[in-house]
């Protein structure tokens, strides 16, 4: 995790997890950021999934693919865009 992001808002932190260029889904992002927001119910998988959809809608993230999990639910995988990298750089 980028140490510059410590104590930053959750949505910003969610976007920053993609700065390494990897593609991730909501579950993976949740595992990465949960330790930075200990015992906060706000940092839930559902909130992160909502933030990912919002980040995708405004162009910070791009959808890299999707698949159906064991329960048949759609899982989206995201990757950061050039615009997202620039936006995060300016926000730090």
């Amino acid at each position, binding site marked *: 995790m980028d140490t510059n992001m410590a*104590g930053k808002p959750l949505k910003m932190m969610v976007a920053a997890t993609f700065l390494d260029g990897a593609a991730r*889904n909501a579950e993976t992002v949740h595992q990465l950021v949960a330790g930075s927001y200990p015992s906060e119910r706000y940092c839930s998988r559902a909130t992160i999934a909502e933030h990912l*959809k*919002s980040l995708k*809608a405004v162009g*910070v993230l791009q959808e890299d693919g999707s698949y*159906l999990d064991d329960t048949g639910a759609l899982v989206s995988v995201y990757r950061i865009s050039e615009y997202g990298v620039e936006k995060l750089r300016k926000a730090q």
Partner: protein
Amino acid sequence: MDTTTAPTATIDALKLRQDVSFAKKGLIFALISGMCWGCNGVILSLAFTTAVLSNNAYWLLAPLTVGALHDTCSAFWLLVFNGFTGRLKELARTLRSKPARTVMLGALFGGPIAMSSYMLGVKFAGPAYVMPITALYPAVASIFASIFLKERICPRAWCGLVLCVVGGVVIGFTPPEGALGSDFYLGIAMAVVATLGWGIEGVLATSGMDLLDPAVALNVRQLTSSAVYMLVVLPLAGGYMLLTPALTSSIGWVFPVAAFTGALSYLCWYRAMNMTGVSRAMTINITYSLWGILFSAVFTEVHITISIILGALVITSGMILVVGNPKDMTNLRDVR
């Protein structure tokens, strides 16, 4: 990752359904925002029925006091909401972050600057001229959004936006009264400042919300607006002399109740801007003029006139054009 093999067509269909559902939710938020703002206006107008706030000597201080009380109570309601939903620590983190400065700047433009300019505009040029100018704020916001946020706005949506603005003007138009005063052009300039202020707020807030939670960003907005009203605007406009009389009069209940509908309206509006884009959210939000008249007709003695029916039809047509096909809203901006 455990994955299930599924036909690509099924996954694509599910993905499209998910994206369209997200966009539609944003449109519903925008519509609720307009309805709540219409209701908010009807409730808040009751404040001006008291002797102290309708006194001509306080033509500037009274509406600004109402604005200050509204945004302060609204900030309080949002603190309650964010506390209830476990967002208070996020609020503290957000207040220290750089994107929050953009939201605070937007709050200054859309709150005290735009509202004070609007009041001065109405005073110097009259509502007949100021109202049509300020009704242009969604168009101004859309132009800024397409330039600064690279928001995609198709020709059909521009046509819808124009219709919604025209419908708003038709509903709210009041014929000019008497000769133009010597400060007429100053009043027009003030109306332009208000229009720009509201338009700029939408773009700045949306830019900040790219990396912030809309509910928390809105709390930052209302806390900023409240602080500026209380510490700068009211002292400049004449002081705090109307605060206590307003809160302790028979209509003291109006402020927390109106602020509740105002907070709900803003909450939906900020979420809508984040989910469907500034242009769509603002255009649908302007239907508040229509909802305001409908609520007034139900709860007060306002009568439905031909111009109201005509304006409603124009606004509805405009909204249909703006909404268009939600499938077009899955990617809001022209960015890579």
